[in-house]
């Protein structure tokens, strides 16, 4: 039996996705579950905000409402992310685990090794770019964020399978319409995707297989794919309703 439990939960709404990451963090914290890797996606598309970001600073709420894009505040810091054509992962380990040792920077590096190995499985060569990015040919492909609570570490991050910059800049706020064109050009120069790197579309299902192999190789093996426990699922629903869908949380800053 491998050291890591492996969950693949498909596409779900933003509040449930964040609720399930919190539920898994709790079950690893309590000892009810062992270190866990989860792969997932977002449906509908969503914007997730860093813990310390102001929602009105970063998100065009009217555009999100009009387009049916969810908005959720994460437990983790970092920047706002538009989640559409991507694969998302979360890793939860006790702080005593080798992946969590050596300080924040080293733990980012250790966990991101799984993302880099997954990209390699797809044929994309990528490198860790401190503090929390992964780049290929100098362009960002993946952003990552972590928090530590109750003796456990949660790191989640995205891998851009494709990127629609026009949609991204419709839902994320830019300082002014005048700057929109320049910003899109700047971001186009700094952000890439698996599709851009490979010149072909990678469906989520194909990415899952690659990242299962990549994380497995980097983490010393994964258990067979399984589902969250009934307790985790009900806890995820509770967190989704009580925290991640609440205005008090979303508009905290």
């Amino acid at each position, binding site marked *: 039996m491998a050291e890591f439990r492996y969950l693949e939960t498909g596409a779900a709404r933003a509040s449930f996705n964040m609720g399930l990451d919190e539920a898994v963090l709790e079950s690893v914290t309590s000892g009810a579950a062992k270190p866990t890797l989860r792969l997932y996606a977002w449906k509908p598309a969503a914007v997730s905000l860093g*813990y*310390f*970001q*102001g929602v009105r*600073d970063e998100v065009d709420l009217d555009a999100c409402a009009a387009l049916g894009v969810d908005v959720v505040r994460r437990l983790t*810091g970092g920047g706002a992310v538009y989640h559409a054509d991507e694969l998302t992962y979360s890793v939860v380990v006790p702080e005593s685990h080798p992946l969590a040792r050596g300080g*924040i920077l080293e733990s980012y590096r250790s966990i991101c090794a799984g993302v880099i190995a997954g990209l390699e499985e797809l044929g994309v060569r990528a490198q860790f770019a401190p503090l929390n990015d992964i780049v290929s040919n100098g362009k960002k492909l993946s952003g990552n964020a972590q928090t530590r609570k109750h003796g456990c570490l949660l790191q989640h991050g995205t891998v851009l399978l494709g990127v629609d910059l026009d949609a991204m800049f419709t839902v994320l706020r830019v300082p002014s319409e005048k700057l929109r064109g320049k910003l899109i050009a700047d971001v186009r120069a700094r952000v890439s995707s698996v599709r851009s790197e490979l010149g072909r579309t990678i469906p989520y299902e194909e990415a899952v297989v690659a990242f299962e192999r990549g994380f497995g190789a980097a983490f010393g093996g994964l258990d067979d794919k399984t589902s969250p426990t009934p307790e985790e699922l009900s806890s995820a629903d509770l967190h989704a309703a009580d925290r991640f869908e609440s205005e008090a949380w979303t508009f905290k800053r």
Partner: protein
Amino acid sequence: MKGSYVGKPSRGKLLRMDMEWEDGLVVQISIRGDFFAHPENAFDEAEAALAGARVAELGDVFERELSARGVTLFGLTPVDVGAAAATIVVGAHNPDNGA
């Protein structure tokens, strides 16, 4: 008085700050951005504890409040927060400079 700051400190993440102050003392402050702080809720407490602090000493006070709660920052320093506060105050007294 009230003022705002948006900027990217050297080697830091984006920092947005709103501050209200009176007679050189902070009445209310909001520090936002894409930085990281662990534990996050202890940062919230340290930020709230800035009410009543002298604006001129904000960086030092914030450092003490964070340190007392064991908060580690990435992409932001207490010095950045103190400098942003100074920029806000200068901007308020010299509106042409813009905060």
